[in-house]
């Protein structure tokens, strides 16, 4: 039997600037999480993402970037957060997909699609592995310096399995 899903769990639009944004006490009844963030940074430098407030060296990622006419790739392992490679002024649209986030027998797999569009458009795809079997109960985004401008939006969706 078909089950309507892609459920909006929470959403927020910043009324004032903020250095970080966190979704906590995440409902554990879904299969995947999707985090959609559309933000304008006060300074350039890219954003960061942590799970469960974990700042240990548990974040691993492979990154594919198209930026200013160049394509590039890089892998970053044993980081203290997920990070994106490119940044610029203007609005940045990010879609994170976190698979089997409530499982306690797997590392957490993640796929990110990132875009920003201004005078130097960029796109980035990223796969990530959070090296922990813990269920994901909170997600925090912050910037590599500066803050999210007012009007930045953060939405969290649950996808049933």
């Amino acid at each position: 039997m078909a089950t309507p899903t892609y459920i909006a769990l929470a959403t927020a639009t910043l009324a004032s600037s903020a250095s970080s944004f966190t979704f906590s006490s995440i409902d554990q009844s879904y299969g995947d999480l999707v985090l959609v963030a559309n933000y304008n940074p006060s300074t350039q430098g890219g954003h960061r993402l942590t799970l469960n407030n974990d700042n240990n060296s548990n974040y691993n990622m492979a990154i594919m970037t198209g930026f200013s006419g160049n394509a590039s790739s890089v892998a970053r392992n044993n980081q203290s957060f997920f990070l994106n490679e490119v940044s610029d002024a203007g609005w940045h649209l990010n879609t994170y997909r976190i698979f089997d986030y409530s499982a306690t027998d797997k590392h957490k797999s993640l796929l990110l699609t990132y875009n920003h569009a201004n005078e130097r458009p960029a796109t980035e795809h990223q796969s990530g592995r959070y090296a922990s079997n813990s269920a994901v109960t909170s997600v925090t985004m912050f910037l590599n310096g500066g803050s999210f401008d007012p009007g930045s939006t953060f939405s969290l969706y649950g996808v049933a399995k």
Partner: protein
Amino acid sequence: MSPFPLGILAASGVNAEAGAFDLLETATLTSSASSVSFTNLANYSGYKHLQVRSITRGSNSDLWSAVFVRFNSDSGNNYADHLLRATDTNIFATAVTSRTNIGYETAGNAAVSGAYGSSVIDILDPFSSSKNTNFKCLWGRLPNGDDTIAFGSGVYLSTAALSTIDFTNTANFVAGTRFSLYGIKG
């Protein structure tokens, strides 16, 4: 805070009716298996598009493992795909025509314990009887070496409406592997 259904289009800022994105079936392996199939697609012909989200791991003793996809149990040379992929050392594109399946990659059993690969496959207009079936796929695997992210698209060179999707592996899918099938209304 009460959750409310929006549908995938709402996620990108476009209004959509409740129930525009539905879970149809899920297969979660409790023991290893050589294949996973969805065989009741005819029941879902009221949907415009399909999506398969998966988290998988192969039993072969390598860092990575191949996943193969076939539609309608068709093993002819009726598939073609293109792939843009990036590893820790390079980024490149490939194209394969006249192939007997669609391929993507996941973690193999030499990957660090707990590592699985993930993918999202969108299958466009699968119930049309006048169009070849197009798809696109975003997948990644981080087995702890030879880490990869890739984005691909391709075609099944048949105008037949889809009735089945079969997933097979280089070896077996291990327990914990999951494939979920979703319908998107049009």
